[in-house]
């Protein structure tokens, strides 16, 4: 108890759980940083302009949404299309927020808003490993901030570096494809179980087939088709198996 009281008066970065959260995040910092540099370079070379690139980098804090909406900015797509595209890509965060809920739902709203901004998907994976029991406890906040701020710092520094290195990188070599490769790796990391492979195939095919649609609507078509395919496959699987159990496609 006395220890808790003391912890309150000390700065959070002295908390052992904060340090633990930061330390566990460190091994993947090179991966985050590479992704950040690529995003920064891609942003500044997209034609969006330096001021918007810097503002976007400092505020949006979602690499996938940034990369995916850049071509829309440049082609002058309507705001609704930009936001809809980002909302589709951010759906994975909505799913992670279901996982965060038991740990954070009781906190004051201002704190929850701050947590929401900083809670990247990588943080959720580490956090769920550290606290497998979905119950709130006092050491969770320092642990969360240790990991989240390490991730945020690595991301901000590297993507700003990328923005300012941008012109030094010869784009004719196709460096921008590194962004696509990063998204490709993220896509692969989401695969687990037969139905996710089918959803992947349907989405990729539908997106290519519907590419001629205006306003990147091919992405919306692809998501709808893949979700429908996933649900149909699940229903078919349930009917085939007499015992219905959730195979848990994703952790």
């Amino acid at each position, binding site marked *: 108890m006395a220890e808790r009281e003391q912890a309150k008066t000390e700065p959070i970065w002295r908390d052992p759980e904060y340090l633990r959260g930061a330390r566990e995040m460190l091994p993947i910092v090179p991966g985050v940083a590479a992704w950040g540099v690529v995003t920064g370079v891609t942003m500044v070379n997209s034609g969006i302009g330096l001021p918007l690139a810097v503002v976007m980098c400092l505020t949006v804090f979602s690499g996938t949404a940034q990369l995916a909406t850049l071509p829309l900015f440049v082609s002058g797509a309507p705001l609704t299309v930009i936001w809809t595209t980002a909302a589709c890509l951010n*759906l994975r965060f909505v799913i992670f927020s279901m996982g965060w809920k038991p740990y954070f739902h009781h906190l004051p709203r201002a704190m929850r808003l701050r947590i929401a901004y900083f809670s990247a998907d990588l943080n959720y994976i580490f956090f769920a490993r550290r606290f497998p029991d979905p119950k709130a406890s006092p050491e969770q906040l320092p642990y969360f901030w240790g990991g989240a701020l390490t991730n945020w710092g690595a991301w901000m520094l590297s993507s700003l570096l990328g923005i300012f290195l941008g012109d030094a990188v010869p784009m004719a070599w196709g460096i921008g494809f590194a962004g696509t*490769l990063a998204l490709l790796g993220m896509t692969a990391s989401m695969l687990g179980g037969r139905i996710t492979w089918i959803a992947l195939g349907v989405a990729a095919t539908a997106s290519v087939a519907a590419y001629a649609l205006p306003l990147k609507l091919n992405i919306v078509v692809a998501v709808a088709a893949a979700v429908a395919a996933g649900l149909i496959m699940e229903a078919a699987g349930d009917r085939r198996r007499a015992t219905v159990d959730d195979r848990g496609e994703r952790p």
Partner: protein
Amino acid sequence: MGLIEGLVAIAGLTVLTVVSRGFFFLIDKDLPMPGWLHKGMRYAPLAALAAVVAPEVVLDHGQLVQTWRDPRLWAAAAGLAWYAWRRGLLGTIVVGMTVLLGLRLGLGW
């Protein structure tokens, strides 16, 4: 796109980041959700990513690539092979880009 409209778009994207990441713990009451939607949501993030990536790899100016000598195809395959082997995002990028640059600069594809 002008500076002001760009800033508005970015402000909206930032709000979307907060709202999506906090969706279920920001709303105070439990949101009822039809079971099928709950299930189907699991495939949406994967589908959105795949829908963004696939055209970037196999399309060239809106047409399917007509030649196997397109470095992007080989770079994507190499990156995926690395990911299947080692599960590393950094390695996926490095291996894919090595192949891309090797083919483009070395063989002039």
